[in-house]
């Protein structure tokens, strides 16, 4: 009981919803694309990764193909890929702009995408060209519901 209370407080501090009826976790202040990428907005920069739902469904990630720094990305367009279970899966950018940083750690430790999808498993940082695009993304509650509906329909 005490450990569950501690975990609940830790989750609250980190703004992670961890006990959402047993489904994958989401982070409250992030925005989400329907292709299961998340965005953390830091000023004009968007930090991008794939969600807990995505990493769970993909399986163990063994390789991440990263874009070059300076590459242009467009909302909904693919910018890289993850490899898991004999499959390469596109990673799509939730926003348009220019890649200003990539997570080089993923070259040596692709499993960070599974172990820490919202923190050390981040994939790229994008200098956004149109902050207005964020309005078309889902908030955490909407995304959680989206994931439930998607899983239920299969």
């Amino acid at each position, binding site marked *: 009981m005490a450990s569950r209370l501690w975990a609940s407080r830790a989750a609250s501090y980190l703004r992670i919803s961890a006990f959402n009826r047993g489904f994958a976790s989401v982070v409250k202040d992030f925005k989400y694309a329907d292709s299961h990428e998340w965005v953390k907005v830091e000023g004009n920069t968007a930090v991008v990764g794939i969600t807990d739902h995505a990493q769970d*469904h993909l399986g163990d990630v*063994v390789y991440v193909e990263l874009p070059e720094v300076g590459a242009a990305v467009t909302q909904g367009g693919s910018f890289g890929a993850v490899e898991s279970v004999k*499959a*390469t899966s596109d990673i*799509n950018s939730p926003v348009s702009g220019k890649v200003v940083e990539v997570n080089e750690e993923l070259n040596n430790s692709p499993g960070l995408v599974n172990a820490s999808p919202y923190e050390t498993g981040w994939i790229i940082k994008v200098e956004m060209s149109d902050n207005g695009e964020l309005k078309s993304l889902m908030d955490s509650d909407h995304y959680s519901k989206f994931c439930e509906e998607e*899983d239920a329909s*299969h």
Partner: protein
Amino acid sequence: MTVPQASKVGLPLMNLVRFKGVPILKQLHLEERLLRTSSDNWCIVNDGTNAPTIVMGLSGKPSELLEVGSVLQDKVPVIKRFTGGGTVIVDPGTIFVTLICNRDSVPGVQPYPRSIMHWSGLLYNEVFEGFGDFRLHENDYVFGNRKFGGNAQSITRKRWIHHTSFLWDFEARNMAYLKLPQKAPEYRLARSHMEFVCRMKDYMTRSVFIDKTLKAMENHFSVRPVEVDVDASVHDAGFVHSTKVLMKHELEEALPISI
């Protein structure tokens, strides 16, 4: 009065392309282009490729997967393909079957690797029923505990490809170009290539296999044969392939350093 085939009503359309002996590089270029730029469903069958070729997955490292010295000496071409998965050596005894689908065309299947793989296992259950102890086992197609089909996939926002190289026959000496991979399925149990794989020809003829595969497709899709000029696709200027042939210097860089 003709009674429409109820099983065909409402099935999604699938274009069927049949080749024989097409070089694997051309096949992969066509597949990647169709995945990325077409909105149709496709089944491609290539009954043998023209020459022995090594094909690695997207993240494959030659130094880990190949006996690079022998590969260079014997000038065996090495391709890195756009899908995931492991390394194979293909030749005229390999039969290729590829499915490229809109995710909405296979609604019971989530666009994730394990879901697609599971569905493919059900499809091929229909093909191999009565021909051997077939199953999908740790993402391989096996008879008993011996692999005869290797799979790989690529998944985009709205579409996916699942392609398989079937070992209808193979040259034992070609297997010597491949190292025992570090990441091997558990059921391999450190067996050598020759103890791990088996030949489909011991179970069925090429034509029976292809006919039964197409019959199984017809249970899920409304299949229509189409002609495709595989050479035309290679020169499609609007598309950049990620499948590529490794250059000699790239293989030389993978040679072990001799002290």
